[in-house]
């Protein structure tokens, strides 16, 4: 069903008809039941278990992702999310009792999480499987009807998902629409109850402006230049390995939370570069272009963009490692650039690729100024054993998430909200936060009719007024006196 849309022209008419269908399905209350939600979540697990091979293959054909990376960072993460949601669902959906203020006594109150309605998830190409289905988990857990628009830049995964979701999921409430700009525009014209977008800031603005027309709330998961601050008093080997794992081990740098650049001190920079070179060789061998463990660049557009960053006059002589390119295979080897000027092209936009510039400062505290002078990143990392520096970092650096002494790991922790701030996005998800992102928190207040005092209503008599006065300021004795009409 879902994959049928591929062959037809998907315009605003089709989109509107589809949304109408989904809304009707949502309105009949199907998605609200706990059973429906868990059955769909179970179907997602089943889907990813039974078709693990195909998913890995699709990811390989789109991005040459290695099997381990595909498994660890996409399939396993997704299954984990599903399991967390399945396990916690009954707690999440039960209303939260809250105390009511005494002003409203006697009463009871609760906060009920209700589904928003029909939601749209637009996902990205770099983790085409995870970033498509992880938000869908939240949407399903919260009881919404969902339309997923996977990225057309990862076509194999996109069509695989359309097929699999069509086979495994309830198609009356969960749909996949494949396509590019035209299809997305047609979708954005519709009225949604939530739009969840993962991608870049430029498109995010279009999405939010479109959402504004229908007053649709949005979650925007964007990127940014995520910095890594490296102190000199550390276990360098562990640090470099973790940086490499976060940079090239994450889809060859094409990940929104990958380290974008390193800041370290002038003296320490050469040591760091040496350590990085050594570990890189251990990981990816002497000829990284041949390594099976490194993803390729997604397409020639991005390849050329990255090439341009390296060809910039300001940085072309700063390459201290790597820099090899293979245009036919769309591969770029892990590249280190030392002391790049801050006004270079590579330092003014998100790199999203296997290039890692290293900035040097005299004192490490200056790095905070460097980071804070740019837009707020999605993540920021620091490697240090200096307690004070850690505290300063946590206090002063505004980013979606911070990790001390590691990279990208916070993504895997479902108890932490994952989302950006400022230029890196709006809203958060993962675990309970996903559920919340797709829920409306409805305040429900129960009052009863018992014991309504006549003093509350006009017309006022002098007795009533005296009583009120005593009640308010006269103390117990005054009240008793007022009640007996003695004052």
């Amino acid at each position: 069903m879902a994959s049928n849309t591929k062959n037809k022209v998907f315009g605003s008419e089709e989109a509107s008809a589809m949304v109408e269908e989904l809304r009707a399905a949502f309105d009949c209350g199907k998605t609200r039941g706990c059973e429906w939600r868990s059955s769909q979540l179970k179907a997602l697990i089943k889907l990813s278990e039974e078709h693990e091979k195909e998913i890995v293959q699709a990811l390989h054909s789109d991005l040459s992702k290695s099997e381990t990376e595909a498994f660890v960072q996409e399939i396993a993460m997704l299954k984990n999310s599903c399991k967390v949601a399945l396990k916690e669902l009954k707690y999440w959906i039960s209303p939260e009792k809250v105390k009511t203020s005494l002003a409203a006594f006697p009463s009871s109150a609760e906060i009920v999480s209700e589904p928003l309605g029909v939601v749209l998830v637009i996902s990205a190409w770099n983790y085409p499987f995870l970033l498509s289905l992880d938000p869908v988990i939240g949407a399903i857990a919260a009881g919404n009807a969902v339309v997923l628009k996977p990225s057309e830049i990862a076509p194999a995964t996109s069509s695989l998902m359309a097929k699999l979701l069509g086979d495994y999921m309830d198609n009356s409430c969960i749909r996949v629409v494949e396509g590019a700009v035209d299809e997305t525009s047609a979708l954005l014209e519709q009225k949604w109850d939530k739009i969840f977008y993962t991608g870049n800031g430029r498109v995010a603005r279009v999405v939010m402006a479109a959402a504004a027309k229908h007053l649709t709330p949005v979650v925007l998961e964007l990127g940014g230049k995520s910095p890594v601050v490296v102190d000199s008093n550390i276990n360098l080997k562990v640090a470099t390995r973790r940086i490499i794992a976060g940079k090239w081990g994450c889809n060859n740098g094409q990940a929104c939370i990958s380290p974008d650049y390193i800041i370290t001190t002038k003296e320490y920079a050469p040591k760091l570069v040496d350590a990085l070179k050594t570990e890189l060789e251990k990981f990816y061998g002497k000829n990284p272009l041949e390594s099976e463990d490194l993803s390729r660049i997604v397409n020639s557009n991005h390849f050329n963009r990255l090439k341009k960053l390296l060809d910039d006059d300001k940085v072309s002589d700063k390459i201290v490692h790597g820099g090899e390119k293979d245009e036919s295979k769309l591969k770029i080897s892990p590249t280190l650039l030392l002391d790049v000027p801050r006004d270079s092209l590579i330092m003014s936009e998100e790199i999203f690729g296997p290039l890692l510039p290293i900035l040097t400062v005299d004192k490490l505290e200056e790095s905070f100024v460097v980071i804070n002078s740019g837009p707020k990143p999605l993540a920021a990392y620091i490697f240090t054993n200096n307690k004070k520096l850690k505290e300063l970092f946590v206090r002063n650096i505004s980013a979606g998430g911070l990790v001390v002494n590691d990279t990208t790991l916070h993504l895997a922790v479902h108890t932490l909200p994952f989302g950006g701030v400022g230029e890196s996005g709006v809203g958060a998800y993962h675990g309970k936060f996903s559920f919340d992102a797709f829920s409306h928190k409805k305040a429900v207040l129960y009052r009863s009719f018992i014991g309504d005092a006549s003093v509350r209503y006009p017309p006022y008599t002098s007795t009533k007024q005296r009583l009120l006065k005593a009640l308010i300021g006269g103390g117990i004795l005054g009240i008793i006196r007022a009640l007996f009409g003695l004052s």
Partner: protein
Amino acid sequence: MALYTAPLLPSGPPSSCFPSALTNRVIIAKEKTKQAQHEDKRSLDARGIHPTTHRVNPLLSWVQYVPILGPPATLTTLTILLYLTQQPLSRILAQAKGPHPGERVPFAQATPSRLGESTTVATAKNGNPSKSKRVLEQPTELKTNTHEIENGLAGKKGNLCPSRALTGVQEEMEEIVRDLREYFKTEKTKSVTWRKNQLTGILDLIHENEDAIFKALHLDLGKHPAEAYRDEVGGVEKSANKSLSCVQKWMAPKKSDIPLLFFPAKGEVFSEPLGVVLIFSSWNFPIMLSLDPLIGAISAGNVVVIKPSEQAPACSEFLANTIPQYLDSNAIKVIEGGSTVCEQLLQQKWDKIFFTGSPSVGSMVMSAAAKNLTPVTLELGGKCPAILDSLPNPSEFKLAVKRIIGGKWGPCSGQACIGIDYLLVEENLSYSLIELLKKIIRRFYGENPAESKVISRIVNKHHFERIRNLLKEPLVAASIVHGGLIDEENLFIEPTILLDPPLDSQIMTEEIFGPLLPIITLNKIQESIEFINAKPKPLAIYAFTKDETFKRKIVSETSSGSVIFNDTLVQFLCDTLPFGGVGQSGFGRYHGKYSFDTFSHEKAVMHRKLFLEIEPRYPPWSRFKLEFLKLAYRLNYFGLLLHMLAFKLGLKKYN
């Protein structure tokens, strides 16, 4: 600047660029503050200002909302309310006399501060024009467009057009935001002390200027001081006190559990301020809806610009004059003005925009925010229904009707986003309901409600006309069963009840936002769910019923910002409940901790140690590593152990 064909107030300038408009406005402002007995009738009528003598007991409206349980509980509740608001009764009684004619509102001059003076355009109106002159090069432009707002912001057709070149103003605006951002970078606003000081400042502000607030509210809306206290001053006080006592707790990082796999690691969530935030408030509760979000923004440590509604000019002016005296004027600014100013403001980059108002303007605000990916909170309205089930016990029925009246005409004469918009009832009940409504309305507001002075007036001519037009449709007019009296001179509309107006008439398709109460009769009260679901999601649903199944059905089958059983409006007082809409009634929530969260970014922080490394995390990949990771992801620690043992002992071979 966009020019709109606005229905102008008689006192307003015929066009926004009239040089005389400025003087005109200054005179009005002066007159307002003096409130001389011999006012210029022509200009004052338009604002609906009428010298008043208050005869009705002030306790009427504010006590009305203190839900009470019999005399013993009354005691507790009232004492607590009093404690919460710390308001001596004598004061309330004294205020009941209302503003004295001829008394000058004690607007003090803004303390000269580097930035404070530059923002408050209001100083010019208030007699010290020299101070504000340097600020906004074209004050005429800023101030004279007040009336455009009718179409520009509150209107339905208006669009935020690229404004005419007001470069001077634009530059000023940019400078203000730049200065604010610089100040935010000094980290001053992040400290607990600063936040607490500002919250105390807000408390001082409302304590010391209570009379001025009452006066301003009376000028703008004809609000009775008691109502003003209950709905505005009291609410702000409660909110500020709550934040003051909780802010430190809210600020503390929250620990998060982290799976053992990541050992050694520590996770926490840090609430950090967003930065420079913009608050657009609305005219119906001009003090509350400005200061309540401000409390949240301050508690979270942000620097703030408030744009009060220019449709409540006296309150706007009051805020502009008073806030710099009580709060850190480097961090909190009030910018007054109409739609042009709004447009200019929306062109700046903000870290959060908090908007209270209508859906159409909310949509514009959000589109503008999209340019900078600014998160927004939209507090809008909607047609909030009340469902009245049959209540066999007559006293309960009476109580329900009382509370419905309180929820309809109590807050600003129906001009409230959470006020009841229409009432759903079973057909056989309608007669007794209407009789009772009439009876209680008469008892509450007297034979001639226009004289009672306990009901607010309609805010301005534009809204007055809008409401009058709702009644003009012949079929609607024919459905009036009570009230319908209209006093154009005083902008007053009597509490009006309509029985079964046509469902396709404007009164049933648009938010009424005025003192008209349509009653819709249904065959069975259960049909009300369907009725409500056919309309956009409202901000609140009120239901009077004792049927538990019906209650559950309402909660699970309808969608609205909040649901309140057997009472009205009390959810606004309850700061443990999130306050905010869904769908057409907005998104985002505030009050209590939710206000703090609305203006905070929850930053995830993960701490790791640089030892204990899991080798299979890194390439080059192998079968062993893949297997290891699979086990690790299942958090199968025992399996992991076996796996590693097997590997060490050479029991399994990988690649």
